[in-house]
């Protein structure tokens, strides 16, 4: 159901929502970028509409609102384990169409890959999503090519237009909140064309492994993992056991975001590493995003948000790799 209300009223609803919700949205972190006096846009808890960065795509994705970078799985003493408590409030997460599609990929791995994930599930069950429209295409995204430019399964859509707020509420809880406001048909803004043109390779196969493109890009990659950490669909993690200094018998087990580009990811006890070269690692990532995930689950993993291309310090473009593969592999 669509509504129009004043921004002021929206702000007051936003305040009220915080009694029952932790609200996460992209925020400009002044000076927190890689280089001096460079900002970074990433997710944080917000308390007012003006704290939200509405225009620029976030550098780091919404996934950190659902999946902590460091998550304590349990604390242990000698013979006991204690699982930390889950969220005490509902979550409202602001995101864009590409991200809504990424959410489906996160759900796929964490809820529907044979086992369910206890920790993801208990956060996910309390999470609601507020779509931010895209009036214009960002520079690097190729959501149209990936079919992720439009999202329908949001709980709420919110657009600020001067001193007005346009809302589309789908979740019943939100419909109830906005019911008093004046009704208006509201359709989310979405893009139908991107600046970044991408042809999706349709015929990737095991033989793609031998394409010299991997060596070429592998020689440029420094294996920093930034592409994985900004990706809204990368879900890998590594387990870490921490023992406390003052009592080494007590500690905690955490899971921490992992990157298939960083040393050690495919290393087994004894030291053998299945993918040692950056060439193999880039190939593994690209093939996962555009080939084997689809083989397993029926749709491509990449949502074309372009964040990996924005963040790569070596200017390796995932989009360019796709275009090359589409040309060379068909």
């Amino acid at each position: 159901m669509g509504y129009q209300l004043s921004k002021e009223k929206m702000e007051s609803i936003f305040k009220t929502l915080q009694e029952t919700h932790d609200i996460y949205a992209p925020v400009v972190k002044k000076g927190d970028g890689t280089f001096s006096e460079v900002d970074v846009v990433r997710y944080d808890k917000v308390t007012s509409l003006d704290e939200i960065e509405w225009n620029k795509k976030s550098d780091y994705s919404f996934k950190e609102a659902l999946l902590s970078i460091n998550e304590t799985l349990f604390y242990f003493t000698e013979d006991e384990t204690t699982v930390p408590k889950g969220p005490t409030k509902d979550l409202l997460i602001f995101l864009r169409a590409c991200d809504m599609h990424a959410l489906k990929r996160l759900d796929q791995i964490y809820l529907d890959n044979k086992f369910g994930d206890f920790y993801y599930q208990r956060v996910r069950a309390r999470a609601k999503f507020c779509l931010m429209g895209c009036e214009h295409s960002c520079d690097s995204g190729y959501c149209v090519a990936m079919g992720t430019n439009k999202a329908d399964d949001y709980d709420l859509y919110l657009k600020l237009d001067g001193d007005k707020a346009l809302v589309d509420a789908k979740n019943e809880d939100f419909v109830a909140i906005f019911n008093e406001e004046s009704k208006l048909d509201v359709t989310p803004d979405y893009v139908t064309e991107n600046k970044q043109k991408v042809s999706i390779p349709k015929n990737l196969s095991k033989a793609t492994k031998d394409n010299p493109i991997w060596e070429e890009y592998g020689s440029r990659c420094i294996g920093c993992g930034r592409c994985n950490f900004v990706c809204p669909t990368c879900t890998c993690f590594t387990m870490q056991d921490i023992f406390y200094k003052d009592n080494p018998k007590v500690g905690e087990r955490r899971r921490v975001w992992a990157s298939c580009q960083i040393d050690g990811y495919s290393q087994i006890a004894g030291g053998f590493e299945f993918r040692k070269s950056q060439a193999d690692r880039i190939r593994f990532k690209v093939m996962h995003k555009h080939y084997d995930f689809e083989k397993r689950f029926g749709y491509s993993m990449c949502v074309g948000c372009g964040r990996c291309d924005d963040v790569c310090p070596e200017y390796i473009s995932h989009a360019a790799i796709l275009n090359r593969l589409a040309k060379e592999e068909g």
Partner: protein
Amino acid sequence: MKNEYVPFPSEIKEVIKHTNLEYTFRMEFDGDVKPGQFFEISIPKYGEAPISVSGIADGLVDFTIRRVGKVTDEVFENYVGDKLLIRGPYGNGFDIDNFKGKEVVIIGGGTGVSPMRGVIQYFAANPKDAISTTLIAGFKSPEDVLFKADFERWSKTINVIKTVDAAPEGYEGPVGMVTKYIPDLKFKDPKNAVFICVGPPIMIKFTIQEIKKLGIEDEQIWTSYERKMCCGVGKCGHCKMDDKYVCLDGPVFNYTEAKELFD
């Protein structure tokens, strides 16, 4: 939803020393488990390691652990009566039914024998369930031989070739790679033969080359993959090969599937 990540304590009932590096820990476990499946064994303050089940008895599972990496070093500090935190079993394991009524050949290299030990034990105990059973097990040297007592017992009911890559002078047993013994295998009906091979990637590669020379089809060959299984439940991504999660879809694969997988 069940929290798969929280381990449970399991008591060490017996420790069997094979070599200076390899021990079998016999531990309590009540529940269904198949040979070839694995558990995540953890020692608080260190971490977890995926260890395959090397033996199954009533209320007990065996884990044969090689002392590599910081996790497994710590396990060796534990002795009978101590408890370890474990979770599992994970993975598909070997399905004995796939091998019953066949001419079974089991080929293992080093610790690769461990995940197949349950299968070997089954056919050694029930030799009539297979037309024939042959075990070819290869180890680096006589000092590296695992399951020494088992070999004695097994050789009473099934054909056993226990070979070492190299041996000091005067060693009386077979010497040479496992591949050396494959051409001599005789079958009543090669179409009814089934091979199970587990070992280092390079051994598997040459073993399968030899097997194929006998006119064996891919679907008659089974193998188990060792990858970096961390979560065991298809989440952490470390063990993914192509579209398969080794922890979910493996570690046991029929060769028709295994040959398509790439890291």
